[in-house]
């Protein structure tokens, strides 16, 4: 979506002489940045919400069925690290193809793009 949105800007940068590898790098960095911010926010919020649910007994459940009166949450640091690692890997690999597409654009067609 960002590549489509910024097609004209990409065309201008290419017309001004920017290298295609640097165009690719711009969009790759953007994807990694989005992944980093989202992962950090998600991990912090997830740990906080989990701790709140566990301490405040925020989600009650039927003890006659489950033998417990609230939803227990026990955060394992290894699980959290695995989730963070997987998220970062995906966030790095996901923008590879769109950034390569952006780098392959023809500057004339890109500037004409509406």
């Amino acid at each position: 979506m960002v590549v489509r949105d910024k097609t004209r800007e990409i065309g201008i940068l290419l017309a001004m002489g920017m290298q295609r590898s640097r165009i690719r790098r711009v969009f790759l960095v953007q994807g990694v940045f989005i992944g980093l911010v989202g992962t950090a926010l998600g991990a912090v919020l997830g740990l906080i919400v989990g701790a709140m649910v566990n301490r405040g007994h925020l989600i009650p459940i039927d003890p006659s069925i489950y033998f417990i009166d609230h939803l227990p949450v026990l955060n394992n640091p290894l699980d959290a690290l695995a989730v963070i690692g997987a998220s970062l890997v995906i966030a790095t690999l996901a923008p590879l193809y769109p950034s390569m597409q952006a780098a392959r654009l023809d500057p004339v067609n890109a500037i004409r793009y509406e």
Partner: protein
Amino acid sequence: MTITVVDILKALFVLAALVTIVVLATNWPKGLDLQVAMRYLRSRRSSRLISLITVIAVGGVTIGVMALVIVLGVMNGMQNDLREKILVSDLGRPRLCRRGDGHRRRVRHGQPRGDEPAALLHQGRSHLPENAVGRRGRRRDRDQAVEQALGVSRGRHHDGCPRRLAVQSQPRRVRPQVSPLRSHRPVRNGDVRLRQQLRPHEPSGGPGLRGAWGRRHRDRGAARRSGARHRGRAAARKHAGLPVPGARLAAPEPLAVLRAQASGR
């Protein structure tokens, strides 16, 4: 050697991580690239700080990671709670568990014997899943877990804490004998008098071997002395009139026969 789906997934993850490292190393941003990338994250309009696309992308990743962390936490919590309730439920005496940070967090009182753990043992055979406890699903470890659940363990896991963190709050008491062929009492090696007291049919108090191997040894010895034709453990139990593990129960009497017996005909 069998390759499981988990192994394949782990290998894929490691491969993806390596590719990520290579991609980041070869495309590490320099001054202008970083500047342009950050500029493209912002909105064209001056009234908005960041573009809608960026907000949607960051929000999606945030929600995904948050959901994963919470769901894994809930699964861990449920597993931990169930394990505490099922495997640590014996004896009615206080236990101290020292957790990872080194603080003694709680003192729990066990439940009376015989309610939940009964489901784990049927005719002396463990009904825990292969990966419930123990290293690599070994049967000896599973049996040990069932013995813990029933409060008859000889290991140090008696209070449900990990072995290296277990803290015994009270000395263990000797339990009455369960059967002449299989007993779970804490018999110490060399304590002949106690073994004689607990095994009156064996003058030496038994060979004193511990664990499954010792039980098998004793059972075979008992079978040999009692003249059983086959010297296995099942034969010994059968000869002693005890239920054989894994054997089929006798079929119940038909209803018509029971009614006839009840009516006296």
